[in-house]
């Protein structure tokens, strides 16, 4: 096992323990945090558990590991993935404005509307940051 794999395994194990801790605390805690903690813990448990199982399966099967690596690094797969993500970003632009309108019409508190707009602006900021960075790179 390489050093990188070891580090990854340790990170996932740490996340798994954190997830279990969150679920336990969530069960015993009362109030609005119960749902948040259990939800967060369950999600984290799923992700870290799945990753650990995947690592375990691949560890005993070098051929499968090689195939997975090839699929991950395959240039066509990467291009398809990037295309899908770009389309999803474009689609989000169509969804965002009607969503803000719904929030205003539904008379939700102002801070929620502002938070939603801040998320939208942050998304564009990330886009512009990567756009500028990539333009300077290539």
């Amino acid at each position: 096992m390489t050093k990188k794999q070891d580090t990854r395994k340790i990170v996932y194990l740490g996340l798994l323990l954190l997830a279990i801790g969150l679920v336990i605390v969530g069960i015993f805690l009362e109030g609005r945090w119960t749902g948040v903690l259990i939800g967060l813990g369950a999600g984290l448990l799923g992700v870290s558990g799945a990753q650990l199982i995947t690592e375990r399966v691949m560890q005993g099967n070098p051929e499968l590991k090689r195939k997975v690596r090839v699929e991950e690094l395959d240039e066509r797969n990467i291009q398809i993935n990037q295309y899908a993500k770009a389309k999803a970003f474009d689609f989000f632009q169509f969804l965002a404005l009607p969503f803000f309108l719904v929030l205003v019409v539904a008379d939700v508190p102002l801070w929620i509307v502002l938070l939603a707009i801040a998320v939208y602006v942050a998304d564009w900021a990330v886009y512009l940051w990567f756009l500028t960075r990539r333009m300077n790179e290539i």
Partner: protein
Amino acid sequence: MKNRVAELRQQQLLTQEELADILEVSRQTISSIENGRYNPSIELAFKIARFFQTAIEDIFIYEETGGK
């Protein structure tokens, strides 16, 4: 862009899977290149050309589309 990847592969009696393994890409990538649905990167085109021991322009045939 048209190409001779399928022809050259068949000459060497290789399956798409075998060529994909050699070039370290997925079988679908080889299939898409052969069908002209996907144009490989310069790097992969060089790898393909090097494997078949021929020049890139002998494998990938550039045809101008559109024009004046």
